[in-house]
């Protein structure tokens, strides 16, 4: 008797850990039963499926004397409902000056600095930010050289 009980208990434990547990048995003539089919938000490797990519170019060249220069980056996203990607562009050191190898400076400012998508799903959406350099106080006063600065892009998920 003890052996039988032990085997039965093992079977019960084995069934308990088996997935999925059968929750519905139909045992009547004309009987019906329902099975729920549902998706997970994780892929088969267990990774969260919702995600996005903001692709920013390595270099952005401003032609000499250009008072407004547009640059493009791209957003692709597949997020949860009512969520969207928002990207902010700003000067990394917040001084808003480009400098050359000799330490000479060229002031600038950024417009269209923030882009927020309208929904959770976008594919390769092009977003534009603008680098502005004043003609009189900027270009005209600067020795002709290569001035550069580093911009910081910050991406976050917001409510759409």
């Amino acid at each position, binding site marked *: 008797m003890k052996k039988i009980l032990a085997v039965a208990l093992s079977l019960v434990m084995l069934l308990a850990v088996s997935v999925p547990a059968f929750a519905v048995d139909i045992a009547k003539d004309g009987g019906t039963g329902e099975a729920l089919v549902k998706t997970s938000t994780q892929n088969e490797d267990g990774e969260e499926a919702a995600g996005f990519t*903001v692709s*920013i*170019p390595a270099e952005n060249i401003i032609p*000499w004397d250009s008072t407004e220069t547009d640059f493009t980056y791209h957003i692709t996203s597949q997020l949860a409902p009512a969520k969207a990607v928002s990207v902010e562009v700003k000067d990394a050191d917040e001084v808003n000056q480009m400098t050359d190898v000799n330490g*000479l400076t060229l002031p600038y400012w950024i417009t269209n600095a923030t882009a927020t998508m309208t929904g959770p799903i976008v594919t390769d959406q092009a977003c534009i930010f603008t680098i502005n350099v004043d003609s009189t106080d900027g270009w005209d006063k600067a020795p002709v050289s290569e001035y550069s600065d580093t911009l*910081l*892009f910050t*991406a976050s998920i917001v409510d759409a």
Partner: protein
Amino acid sequence: MKKILAIALSVVMLLAVSVPAFAADITTDGGTGTAIIKTSTQTSGGEEGAGFTVSIPAENTIYWKALSTDLKYTVTSQLGPNTGVQVTVDDTDKAYVMTDENDYTLAYSLANTTGITASPVVNGAEFTYTVNVAEEAWNAAVVSEYADELTFTAELVAI
């Protein structure tokens, strides 16, 4: 297999030469990435941004019996760092003689013949050169309109 490899390699090479290369992808909430903005020394039309203009008057009047006459020219420049414009004034034929329509002559000399801008960026910087006529020359000259041609030479120099 070789054909597939060849196509795959072509695709890889094509992607390799495609511009611009994306240096950073941000994929996490609150994630950041950096990009460089940089000026070119060429304008959007492909022209070199650096340049200068030396403006010289077409005629420069020397009054009769003036022993020393200052004449002016201006320089406007936007050059690379540590670069300036040097302007040199000289008699074109180096005879240093003004002549009239009857070939009468009036000797002169030049002073302050070299001007150098102090900065790569100047706007209408004024420079003066001097035409000297000795009193003896004036006294010996027939009253007439004497003229000569001067040559201005501009070149970029380190400053």
